[in-house]
């Protein structure tokens, strides 16, 4: 043993085997069930959209880091992969590929790297990409192919509407929930995923399996998803109890649209969610309330993406005002 071979460093001398990379790939694994359902429902179209989004996200991250920022290339850390997957999951399966490429560029370039890369972005990059596309190309972004008969066919032949879209349109034109009952997919269909909608938000069961995996692997905690869904259920429940003819029941609200995908995969994004449990609960309540307000009273049938982005903007503030209780202090939360 020579003196040089000994390492001197400060404690602790051991480290848990968790790494950022492992966390990221756990999220990817958790998205697999939902991806499989989308393949089953939309066929090869879902695969093409997903592949296009993932490849362009990775490619843009590489190109921007290598040639524009001339910084370390971090496409291996799994975060661009997740951005690509989540962006794809928020798109309809029939969307033109060039739009996916534009959305990916916006997600990675503006949503993530312009802020300084992983860990510095304020907004969820995938949602930034999606909302950019939604505002720029509203028609294409809300043209929902329904389940295809032949899974190998490109699935832009049949178009349907999302359950939330049906409700929004129906109610806006003076219908009641009773009138619409026959048009809304059954609860079972929504659980399994045989409805219209974005690629990844189809099957409630598949998303729940992924969500439970993330909870078991301790990538996320229950605070955000549970609080967000409970807030939505309570709020829509109150409206439904008051007037069930003009408001859909909470189960429809939870199982349809991006609620589950948002609750388990988007709102829980480590970088853009609060860092204390107290903060997470405030954050999730905010998302739930804004989502319901948009869904019930806004122009868009769905509001999860907007709600998450709006609450993302509050995260630095939440982190400042909702601190953990310091050991040995009487004050519950300190205001700086």
């Amino acid at each position, binding site marked *: *043993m020579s*003196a040089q*071979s*000994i*390492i*001197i*460093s*400060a*404690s*602790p*001398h*051991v*480290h*848990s085997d*968790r*790494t*950022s990379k*492992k*966390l990221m790939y756990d999220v990817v694994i958790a998205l697999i069930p939902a991806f499989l359902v989308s393949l089953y429902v939309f066929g090869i179209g879902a695969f093409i959209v997903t592949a296009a989004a993932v490849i362009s996200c990775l490619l843009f991250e590489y190109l921007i880091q290598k040639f524009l920022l001339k910084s370390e290339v971090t496409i291996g*850390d799994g975060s661009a992969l997740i951005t690509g997957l989540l962006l794809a999951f928020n798109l309809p399966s029939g969307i033109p590929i060039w739009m996916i490429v534009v959305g990916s560029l916006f997600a990675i370039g503006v949503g993530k790297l312009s802020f300084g*890369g*992983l*860990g*510095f972005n304020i907004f969820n990059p995938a949602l930034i990409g999606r909302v950019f596309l939604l505002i720029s190309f509203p028609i294409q972004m809300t043209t929902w192919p329904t389940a295809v008969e032949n899974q190998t066919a490109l699935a832009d032949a049949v178009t349907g509407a999302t359950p939330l879209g049906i409700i929004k349109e129906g109610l806006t034109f003076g219908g009641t929930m009773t009138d619409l009952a026959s048009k809304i997919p059954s609860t079972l269909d929504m659980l399994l995923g045989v409805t219209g909608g974005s690629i990844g938000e189809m099957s409630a069961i598949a998303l729940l399996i992924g969500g439970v995996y993330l909870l078991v692997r301790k990538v996320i905690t229950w605070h955000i998803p549970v609080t967000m869904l409970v807030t939505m259920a309570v709020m829509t429940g109150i409206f439904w109890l008051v007037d069930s003819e003009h408001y859909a029941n909470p189960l429809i609200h939870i199982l349809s649209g991006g609620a589950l995908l948002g609750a388990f995969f988007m709102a829980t994004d*480590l*970088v*853009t*969610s*609060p*860092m*204390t*449990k107290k903060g997470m609960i405030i954050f999730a309540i905010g998302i739930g309330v804004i989502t319901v307000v948009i869904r019930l009273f806004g122009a868009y049938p769905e509001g999860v993406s907007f709600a998450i982005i709006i609450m993302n903007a509050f995260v630095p503030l939440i982190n400042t005002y909702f*601190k*953990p*209780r*310091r*050991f*040995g*202090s009487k004050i519950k939360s300190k205001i*700086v």
Partner: protein
Amino acid sequence: MLKTFPKGGIHPPENKITSGKEIKRMPVPKVVYVPIAQHIGIPSEIIVDRKDKVLKGQVIAKTSGFVSSNIHSPVAGTVTKLDMMIDSSGYKKQCIVIRTDQKDESNFEEKEYPLIREISLSQKDILQHVIDSGIVGLGGATFPSHVKLDLKNDNHVDCLLINGVECEPYLTADHRLMMEKADEIIVGIQILMHALHIKKAVIGIENNKKDAIKVLKEASKGDTGIQVAALQVKYPQGSEKQLIKAILKREVPKGGLPMDVGVIVHNVGTIFAIYQAVQYNEPLTERVVTVTGKKIENASNFWVKIGTPIKDLVEQVGGLPDGTRKIVNGGPMMGKAIKNTDVPVTKGTSGILVIDQNEASRGEPKNCIRCGECVFVCPMGLEPHLLMNLSEKGLYERASNEDIMTCIECGSCSYVCPSHRPLLDYIRFGKNIVKKLQTAKN
């Protein structure tokens, strides 16, 4: 449901390889190196000179203030040098070097210490014995123990906590001591209860030491004032504040001491040393040290003379294995990496841990992904990511406002950080500067 502290904490792999190994006696070293700064507080004052003959147990450096401690010669022999030597802190410190007299029988006799239950000394004499015997906290903090015994009359201390938690992975010194010296520890507790006029004592032991819990429960049967509390296994439960919270649900106020909530905490090793000092007038010159590591051949627990070079211990367990990259004085969470094996065992050395390449090297720090894991595990309710950031940027005032000084340096944040960020390194750095700024202000 077992008791534990409510906020934060981690579960590192326990790796208590030596928990079944009886404490063996180390051969008497040929030379001992006794540093004079082995405790928190003012270094002791050397009262011997070169070429002086010293007896075993003779005071060689005496206490030089209230928060200071006597140091005794662990062997009979001759002082060969008063030298500066690197100790486990990594700095050169004054050391008294003593060559063991191979002819002196007192060095090699195996003294028997039959159990003495009766406590004959008065409160004042007990305190004097603790001062004279150079007892310091053996859990690692090495705070002079008599300071915690010399209470003012208006104190409202009502409970003595005995720390048998040993939450550091690998270490088993306290565990073995509790197994082998249970009766002595109980008498030691009674001595302290007598000295402090306290009616209640609780021994806190984590539930991964079920045998020790059983043995101590058995040993304390006759005394209704002494309870044994089995605790959930969670690091850093051995930290004083967390232990008090776990057992008594009392919270030491920010910047306060256990005494502020009516509690005095002593480590089991200290209790045994106090027992020896009070019942046998035996000064603190040896302690139990766990010598361990995954690749160490005969990892075990030893009675080691203070001042024994660590290389003697390593030799005893079969030498350093190939690929050794780090030698730690203490446990893996809070121990100090030492520069070489010439460093001597001091009163605060609870273990020597040998680590190989895989565990020794740190991961490359990556961007903070703001996962909040450091916030969740911090037992003090701090935000390590923020404190690191503030220290890094030189914003010490804000770091101070964010309670950086209450950090207990348990290392849970650095342990869990998935981006391998050196959180505790920066927090320590920030603490040092904040401390200096505060001293400058006063």
